[in-house]
């Protein structure tokens, strides 16, 4: 293993198809028109010295190191800003150029405390500069004290405010790479160059420190800095990394590729991988910096068991723990029937680990009681897109947004939940694409630097379907539909009856205005823009799916896309932004109770027989229990044992009191996780899990991209997670065995038509592939439904608006909706164990000033939030982001108990919980809720680990 260093071509690749031939240092080269001379030279293998240029940003021409000579032209132009031209003859190294570069470099170093390992030193070596004639006697930014003993007013202390990186102004050469990275790559515009001339300096925000500024700590500036002025604290602490491994981030569904840069078996830093198909070299604060949880002191690395959940945990051997779990599960099945146990797979685990768990449930448990955490997030996506288009996945790759003209963002908050893709969206918006946002909350994308939504439709929570139906109504009644596209690609019978439905006056924006709270005129204007503005792409999140009409809404959006011909080419589509890293993969792998891998129903005899043959055992033809059904059956007494892989259902699932009653009713709960999470408080067996740094396998992101997750270090607890699953299956009588994760993928490919062409060898060779990957598409399928829908003809579905039964009344007059924040992830088990708590140490309740005032609530006061199922206490944050009548919180901290309030209401088709609509009351409070008091007791009592008696040394 070596340290992987990517080639930096200095300037971005030109998209031109016209080619230009020129000569560089006597060598002929042909490159696309618009390519810089610097890039053309690099393609020949000639690295022209540079400091301010890098290939993920537009050329800038400030450092003056990359000068070249062009025969017949005056002067020494900068090669980064000079485009190639036909027939020109370029010289990159002459005596004149050498002297000029040495002079420039010497001036830089005259005001720079050269560091041994920085690009500055490399560049000094490159231009042959061995001696700097100027000391720091004159004006400089390096010495804190002048020669006369007075303080140097130009000197600035290091900014150590960010927990992950340092900014040392003394090392800064004001090349603007960090400023441009913040603008062009990240799109936050937190940095600028303040002052003029020698007083110029990099300024975060209004010359604040980084933490006080708008900086979102994505790391783009640190990555861009050529001088070490911005540097990871981990590099300062541990030294320069020596080796690297390409792997995939374990946070959101963007699925960014990273270089894990190591020293021995210690991670020094995570650097976004330029060739990563999903992120192309960009990152966010979570993936870039928040990986420290993997070695946090709370990590449990020994298997543990206990008879009762009130007993302290007892550390045991793997053999004992697996035997204990197998024995209990088999006893339960003997007593209560084979359907009395089940398992839950995790979107935080690899495809191979998930596949193993669902196979264990179907073969060793002999039932289909397996579900995945996608149940509570994107299960309506699978249902809705399958019904309309014929496949349970998003239609595009991320790159497609570069050709989008109108973005329709619905129920998603990309800058917080999918930040790396949000940067890509914002880049396109800065280029002129239009933006329509449907969201009850004023998310950042409504107005942020250089991005202003053309329409923000702040609809009432629970009225998504009404608004999208109204958009379709306008398009159809105003004759803006894509007639030829519909005639060619959609089912005419279904379209005809949908037309009859959607044309009804009840679906007009005017009729819906009083229900949705959105101006009819705005809806009409937004509809016209989406229908006529060019390539229209829908991007959506859990604000769509987590409703009683989640599946209906997905179908309504699919109708809208078909109606306008916006499926089946670049720049368009219906795109779910998946919450967790492997939501798509966990669904693909057959962890729904009614489907095998590749979304084939367990009741399909031919499919089931194929699996029976491969797995050599009889399989159940009946659908199993979904997660909420498991809880109901547990309370009822017919479900008694549960295996939970890497999920924290006690924190993440709705109506916490109902969930904990269900867990308490179980006779055996097995938790496989990194930490003693909330669910572990109700468990009898704990199998320590592996962090993403210890896994070998694959994740599939929101664009169906299968990325390799490579083992960076050995599992801390000694076993791969799939190996534990195999051993549990064996202990229960089913001989499941694999020698490697690669073998599991080989089996997935054998039994899953859409994965038929996938193997670790191919992924290692190509970097990644997007399914379907098979004989028809050996290198994968970036865009779906090109030329026709997977189901044949696209199906318009009738999507009548049915209001949720969760309504406000005089007891619960406000609507609570929940969401996420940039620095934290899901239940926070990972990010709470990193320095990301510096940005979000507690969940707060956002409340509109009017709602706060009538309740006498001031900013920062503790308030009680109660619904018909429970109550909790949070700190109030008065905010105009919410409309009057709507309050908002996150669920990243267990003590917050956000899901104590959410109810059992769920999507009609999939049982995805209705997290986004809960009727609540908010009142001032000066104490914790009863639930929070109970939680604190349980936190102490149910998570005790028995101390082993000390044995005297002989």
């Amino acid at each position, binding site marked *: 293993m070596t340290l992987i260093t990517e080639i930096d071509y200095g300037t971005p690749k030109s998209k031109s198809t016209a080619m230009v031939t020129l000569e560089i240092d006597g060598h002929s080269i042909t490159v696309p028109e618009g390519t810089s001379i610097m890039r053309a030279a690099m393609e020949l293998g000639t690295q022209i010295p540079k400091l301010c240029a890098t290939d993920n940003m537009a050329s800038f021409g400030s450092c003056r190191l990359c000068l070249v000579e062009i025969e017949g032209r005056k002067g020494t132009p900068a090669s980064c800003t000079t485009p190639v031209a036909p027939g020109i003859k370029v010289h990159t190294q002459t005596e004149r150029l050498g002297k000029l570069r040495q002079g420039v470099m010497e001036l830089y170093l005259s005001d720079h405390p050269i560091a041994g390992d920085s690009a500055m030193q490399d560049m000094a070596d490159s231009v042959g500069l061995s001696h700097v004639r100027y000391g720091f006697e004159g004006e400089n930014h390096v010495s804190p004290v002048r020669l006369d003993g007075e303080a140097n007013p130009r000197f600035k202390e290091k900014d150590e405010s960010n927990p992950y990186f340092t900014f040392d102004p003394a090392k800064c050469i004001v090349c603007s790479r960090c400023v441009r990275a913040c603008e062009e790559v990240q799109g936050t515009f937190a940095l600028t160059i303040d002052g003029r001339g020698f007083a110029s300096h990099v300024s975060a925000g209004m010359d604040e420190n980084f933490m006080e500024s708008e900086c979102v700590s994505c790391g783009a500036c640190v990555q861009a800095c050529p001088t070490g002025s911005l540097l990871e604290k981990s590099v300062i602490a541990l030294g320069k990394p020596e080796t690297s491994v390409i792997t995939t981030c374990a946070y959101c569904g963007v699925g960014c590729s990273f270089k894990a840069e190591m020293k021995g078996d210690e991670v020094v830093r995570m650097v976004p991988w330029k060739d990563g198909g999903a992120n192309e070299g960009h990152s966010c604060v979570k993936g870039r910096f928040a990986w420290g949880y993997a070695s946090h002191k709370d990590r449990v690395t020994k298997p543990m068991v206990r008879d009762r959940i009130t007993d302290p945990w007892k550390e045991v051997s793997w053999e004992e723990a697996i035997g204990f779990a197998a024995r209990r599960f088999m006893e339960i099945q003997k007593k209560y029937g084979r359907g009395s146990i089940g398992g839950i797979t995790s979107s935080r685990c690899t495809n191979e680990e998930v596949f193993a768990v669902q196979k264990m449930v179907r073969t060793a448990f002999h039932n289909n009681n397996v579900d995945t955490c996608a149940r509570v997030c994107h299960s309506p996506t699978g249902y809705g897109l399958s019904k309309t288009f014929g496949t349970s996945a998003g239609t595009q790759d991320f790159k497609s947004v570069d050709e989008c003209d109108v973005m329709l963002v619905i129920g998603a908050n990309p800058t917080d939940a999918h930040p790396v893709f949000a940067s890509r969206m914002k880049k396109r918006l800065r280029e002129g694409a239009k933006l329509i946002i449907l969201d009850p909350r004023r998310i950042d994308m409504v107005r942020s630097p250089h991005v202003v939504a053309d329409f923000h439709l702040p609809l009432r929570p629970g009225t998504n379907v009404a608004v999208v139906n109204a958009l379709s109504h306008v398009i159809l009644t105003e004759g803006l539909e894509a007639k030829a596209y519909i005639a060619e690609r959609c089912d005419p019978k279904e379209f005809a009856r949908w037309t009859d439905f959607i044309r009804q006056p009840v679906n007009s924006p005017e009729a819906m205005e009083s229900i949705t709270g959105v101006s009819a005129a705005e809806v009409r204007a937004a509809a016209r823009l989406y229908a006529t503005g060019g390539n229209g792409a829908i991007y959506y999140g859990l604000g769509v799916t987590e409703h009683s009409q989640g599946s209906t809404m997905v179908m309504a959006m699919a109708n809208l896309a078909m109606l306008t011909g916006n499926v089946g080419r670049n720049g368009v589509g219906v795109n779910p932004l998946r919450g967790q890293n492997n939501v798509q993969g966990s669904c693909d792998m057959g962890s729904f109770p009614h489907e095998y891998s590749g979304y084939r129903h367990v009741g399909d005899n031919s499919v089931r027989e194929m699996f029976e043959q491969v797995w050599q055992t009889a399989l159940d033809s009946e*659908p199993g229990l*979904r997660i909420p059904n498991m809880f109901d059956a547990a309370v009822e007494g017919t479900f008694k044992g549960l295996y939970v892989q890497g999920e924290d259902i006690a924190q993440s699932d709705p109506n916490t009191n109902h969930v904990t009653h269900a867990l308490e009713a179980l006779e055996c709960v097995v938790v496989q996780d990194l930490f003693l999470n909330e669910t572990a408080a109700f468990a009898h067996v704990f199998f320590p899990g592996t962090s993403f740094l210890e896994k070998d396998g694959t994740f599939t992101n929101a664009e169906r991209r299968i990325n390799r997750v490579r083992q960076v270090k050995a599992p801390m607890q000694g076993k791969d997670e799939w190996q534990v699953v195999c051993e549990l299956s064996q202990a229960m009588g089913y001989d499941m065995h694999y020698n490697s994760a690669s073998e599991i993928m080989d089996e997935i490919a054998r039994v899953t038509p859409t994965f038929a062409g996938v193997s670790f060898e191919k992924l290692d060779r190509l970097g990644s592939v997007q399914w379907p990957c098979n004989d028809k598409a050996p290198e994968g399928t970036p865009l779906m439904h090109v030329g026709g829908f997977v189901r044949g003809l696209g199906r318009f579905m009738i999507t*009548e608006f049915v209001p949720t039964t969760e309504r406000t009344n005089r007891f619960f007059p406000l609507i609570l909706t929940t969401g996420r924040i940039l620095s934290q992830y899901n239940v926070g088990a990972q990010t709470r164990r990193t320095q990301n708590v510096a940005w979000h140490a507690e969940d707060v309740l956002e409340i509109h000033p009017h709602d706060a005032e009538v309740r006498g609530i001031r900013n920062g006061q503790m308030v009680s939030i109660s619904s018909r199922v429970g109550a909790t206490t949070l700190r109030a944050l008065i905010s105009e982001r919410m409309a009057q009548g709507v309050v908002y919180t996150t669920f990243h901290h267990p003590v917050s108990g956000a899901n104590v309030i959410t109810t059992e209401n769920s999507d*009609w*088709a999939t049982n995805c919980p209705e997290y986004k609509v809960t009727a609540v009351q908010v009142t001032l409070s000066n104490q914790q809720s009863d639930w929070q008091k109970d939680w604190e007791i349980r936190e102490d009592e149910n998570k005790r680990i028995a101390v082993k008696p000390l044995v005297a040394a002989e």
Partner: protein
Amino acid sequence: METRDMLRMANQIADFFKGYPREEARKEAATHLNNYWDPRMRKHLFEHLAKGGEGLDPLIIEAAAQIRKPKMDAA
């Protein structure tokens, strides 16, 4: 499962398919229940129907003939 939860879920399914012609709606609702409801959930539904089906949407009652009766040992 509480009967009220079973009724809520079954009636939500009926609400969606009501937009379709009656015969098709009956068939789709039954198919949905066959495809996604675990046998013990369908058993609960049939037990409630046997008691008169109070609170059930008429569409689900009409669809009952097409809903697969679970084998009682499945749970």
